[in-house]
């Protein structure tokens, strides 16, 4: 069993639905995006296209972030999900330096989305669950996955560009898509073996 | 036989006719169209052009109610058995677009 995600770049329209539904799910502080979308220009006028590239933690099989964590806060869970035990994290940020994909964020403080105007009731609710002075990142919405739900970004993707499932099961939708549509991870040469695959645009 | 009908002018018609409610005599049998023609004679061309886009054809924004029920056909007869028919003439112009909502 190895959880993984396939993102179909042909289907994605760069609407940022993943980025914002992730924010709504996790209540992350300002500046923190477990899921985000990058826009890249490819080509020169008039032969040009915009590529919408959704990014998140790749839940690598060989995660450099886990290797460098001095306290064991960063760890691999069952199913290959890379997670951070917030109570063990000391905020040294070595993992952020080690992650080649920039998927980790340091939560210095519970900053307000309306600076100087206090927390919204929503922020108050969500910040109860978060520690400050620690590193945060995508955990494949493990709280949803254990309930049998897809991660928030997958469940919300209007283009149905994201598929979640078991990479080890050859009959799974993710395995089929990777096989049939030629899915590849980002920067495979780094040897981290990510669990997130992209289908060509 | 001469009967009576009560007419209310709603929306902008109240301003246009200078009245909210009138009762007027009408010869039986009479249809809604007969009544509107009668009103047109009484209130003049300004009233008439506010109602009719062509003879016997109302603008799409004109609504007629008889005893609070909206009238679909101008040929609907006015009935007098159950007392004075209450007719309401209502302009519902809509100068709005966009998505009407929106975009």
């Amino acid at each position: 069993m190895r959880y993984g995600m396939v993102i179909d770049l042909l289907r994605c329209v760069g609407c940022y639905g993943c980025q914002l539904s992730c924010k709504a799910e996790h209540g992350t502080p300002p500046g923190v995006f477990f899921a985000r979308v990058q826009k890249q220009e490819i080509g020169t006028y008039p032969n040009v296209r915009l590529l919408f590239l959704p990014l998140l933690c790749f839940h690598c099989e060989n995660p450099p972030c886990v290797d460098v964590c001095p306290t064991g806060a960063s760890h691999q869970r069952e199913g290959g999900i890379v997670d951070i035990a917030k109570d063990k994290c000391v905020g040294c940020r070595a993992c952020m330096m080690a992650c080649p994909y920039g998927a980790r964020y340091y939560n210095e403080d519970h900053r307000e989305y309306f600076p100087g105007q206090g927390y919204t009731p929503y922020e108050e609710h969500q910040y109860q669950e978060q520690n400050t002075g620690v590193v945060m990142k995508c955990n494949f919405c493990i709280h949803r996955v254990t309930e049998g739900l897809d991660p928030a970004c997958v469940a919300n993707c209007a283009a149905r560009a994201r598929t979640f499932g078991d990479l080890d099961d050859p009959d799974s939708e993710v395995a089929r898509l990777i096989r049939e549509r030629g899915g590849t991870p980002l920067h495979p040469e780094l040897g981290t073996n990510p669990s997130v695959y992209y289908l060509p645009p | 036989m001469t009967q009576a009908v009560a007419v209310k002018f709603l929306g902008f018609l109240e301003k246009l006719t200078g009245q909210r409610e009138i009762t007027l005599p009408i010869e039986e049998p009479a249809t809604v169209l007969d009544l509107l023609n009668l009103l047109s004679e009484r209130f003049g061309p300004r009233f008439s052009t506010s109602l009719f886009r062509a003879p016997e054809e109302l603008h799409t924004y004109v609504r007629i109610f008889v005893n609070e029920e909206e009238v679909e056909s101008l040929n609907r007869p006015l009935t007098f058995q159950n007392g004075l028919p209450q007719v309401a003439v209502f302009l519902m112009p809509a100068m709005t677009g966009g998505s009407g909502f929106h975009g």
Partner: protein
Amino acid sequence: MAEPAARSGPGTKDCWIPSACGMCYGTCSILGHRVNGTLVKIEGNPKSAYGMGRLCAKGASGIMTLYDPNRVNVPLRRTNPKKGLGIDPGWKEISWEEALSEIAERLRKVRQDDPRKLFIQRTTTNTSARIPIQVFAWAFGTPNHWVAGGGLHCGNGAHLVGGIFHASWSLVPDFKYCNYTIYFGASKGHGAGHASCTNIQLAAEARERGMKLVVVDPMCNFASAKASQWVPIRVGTDGALALAMANVIVNEMGVYDAPYLKQCTNAPYLVGPEKTYVRDAESRKPLVWDGTRRKAVPYDDPEMGDFALEGTFEVNGVSCRPAFAALREHLKQFTPSWAAEISTVSEKTIREMAQEFATEARVGSTIVIEGKTYPYRPAAAIYFRGSEGHVNSVYNCYAIGLLNHLVGAADVVGGALGFNPVCHGHPETGRPHYVPKPGPDGLMVTGTWLSPHLPYPFADPSMPEAMGLQELFPLGMVSPFTASRDQEEMWQRFQLPYRPEAMINYGCNSVMSVGNKDTVIETLLKIPFIVSFDIYHTEFTEFADIVLPDTSYLEHLDSRPNPFILNLHAGLGEWCWPIKQPVVPPTGERRSTFDVLIELADRIGIREETNLAFNSYLKLEAPYRLESNKKYAYEEICDRDLKTLFGEKRGLEWFKKEGLISWKKKPEEVYWRYEVPVRIPIYWEFLKPLGEKAGTIARAHGMEWDDTFYDPLPTWKPCPSHECHDSQYDLYGFYYRDTLHTNSFTMENPWLDEAARIDPFSYTIAMNKETGLKKGLRDGEQVWVESEKGRKVRGKLHLTEAMHPEGLGFGGCAGHWSKKLPVAQGKGVFFNELLEIDFEHSSPVNLNLDLCVKVRVYR
């Protein structure tokens, strides 16, 4: 993976409440997750056809709009009588009772004097506001009701032509079956607009299936980014391209769908030398030539043999020919080389597009769906804001729409589809039920519409009585004269017998949404009393006398947030009727505007009118019809609406729990074109007499009038920007809709603002990279953009390859300056500041404002 497991419904401490999104007019269905009274998540409702369980960035971010500490929470009255840009109104808190009695008294006096002196404006964003506000306007007796920038910018042409050609508000390709689509300044299925989230999914499936999408657009983003082919075009010239394509299709290729043109259009109607129909002397019906019997007969002659589409005939002593022959001849002037010169799209590309479109349409082919054979035309030409937002608005949409009609690809399998113009109703109640019907000259009248001002038939032009002078422009809906530079001049010219004395605003920021702020502000300063229902203090609110705290979309109720012709996806699938209900109760003193309007109507003394108007608009049936003398809460009206539509058991209580009702669309509802005996005009004969009558009135009042915009056949007319020949103004400024934002309202949402600040385009001014480098400009620097009229805005430059060399693109309607919108303030660029608002910059047919402007850019 699995769909969400059973979640508890309304009424529990941890519950999911079905409702409707209000972050744009797309109004996708949502589930609000409320825990101990706090909204903690908004997700799409997977049971609904509106969004199919998915939301865009805006929809997912609604929590931050709900909980914005900058919201208006109490009624306010200004203490400073002086109004002006940047002048503090000196707001003082007042009670609701104080506010309502003051407003009612002012409005009662205005109404006694002349009800037309009340001017109502509302936002396009919240679809729920349409009915209660329209009802209030009718009951009051004012025709002066507009949606400010909405309509003037996006709808006068697109929705008008959508109504005339498809009996629907908008059109999309039949994503399920279409193989070749051309978008002309449209982005349907790419993150914004009508049926937004559902169309994203349908478009993604079409893309995966291999539908070729060609996007004609000055900028390569959104739809063009996903297109099979991006065709960069000079801003505002789409109509020329479409006309040349039509010429290639019918004259060079000789392709057209004759059976369609004969049965479903006015192509066979005989047209005389005066460009008008040759009519039957007795019935006045337009005549057609029966090729079998070799004589002219009325178009609906039951003995009809074969309609002639070509040839010249002598009828009633005049020489005449079928409308199609006239169109075909007319199109010959629009050669690809002519269009290439205007549009910068090469002759080769124009021919290729025309050839591919006509070939892919497979004229003559059929397909079997659910056991029944339908015409199959898997090609579609789709227009929207980019092509329609110009003085040539009507002809641009007409020309693009013609491409579909020439090859018979309209409301048939695979073609261009209107949004649900035919509905046979729920199987148990038969409601709602509407079908287009034949009107004057057999031409199509919509079966349903969003306002009583139908796209066809038109009233005869007459002396205007509305502030927008729409009586003189029967094809126009929203009019610039409501807030234009030449407003007073026009009112005097046409002897408008009154001036606005009171204004009600519902959530609209017209200071930013129409055009340049100075012109709009000048018109607002003339209105002595302004009431604004708002969730925020916007740039508009600064000019109000009383501000009332409105509920957001997450705090109010509505039984019909989604009319089918507006937001339900086109094509096969499900009918779906959701409600909107509060996912949290309103905090503070916020009240639903819909109830406040009913209360005001009551205090003004127009209860009877209000109730009859609700009965009429909602088509309430006994026993659910409102009694004229009884006062109703909006909730009760919603209950009666739902029971009329879906039966006694399915009232508001049922819908609050279930959220929505769905049933299957029938193929004959979706592919209705040959099932309904209506014709659409490929030749707009009605335009000429309208133009003549309007022109007579206009000229009699000293106004210059250009008859050439009222010719029955489309042509290309330049935008004012194309007629600026001062070489220092070398770029065409235009704005486009950013997927992260809706109108001017979402920049205050800190999540969306944060995403937009990272996005390379949202808040920047996009310029072709080579163009910028030639000017010595650098990516990321602050620049001035100045119109030929000397209006200026400043913003951050983004040099990009994804832009036509002459284009300058601005994201949405940003650049707020209100200090009471601390998140939005200073973000992005206020493009509309560059737009003139006057007749010179408007369509003389449908009054659409021209939205492109010639500019220069400097440091």
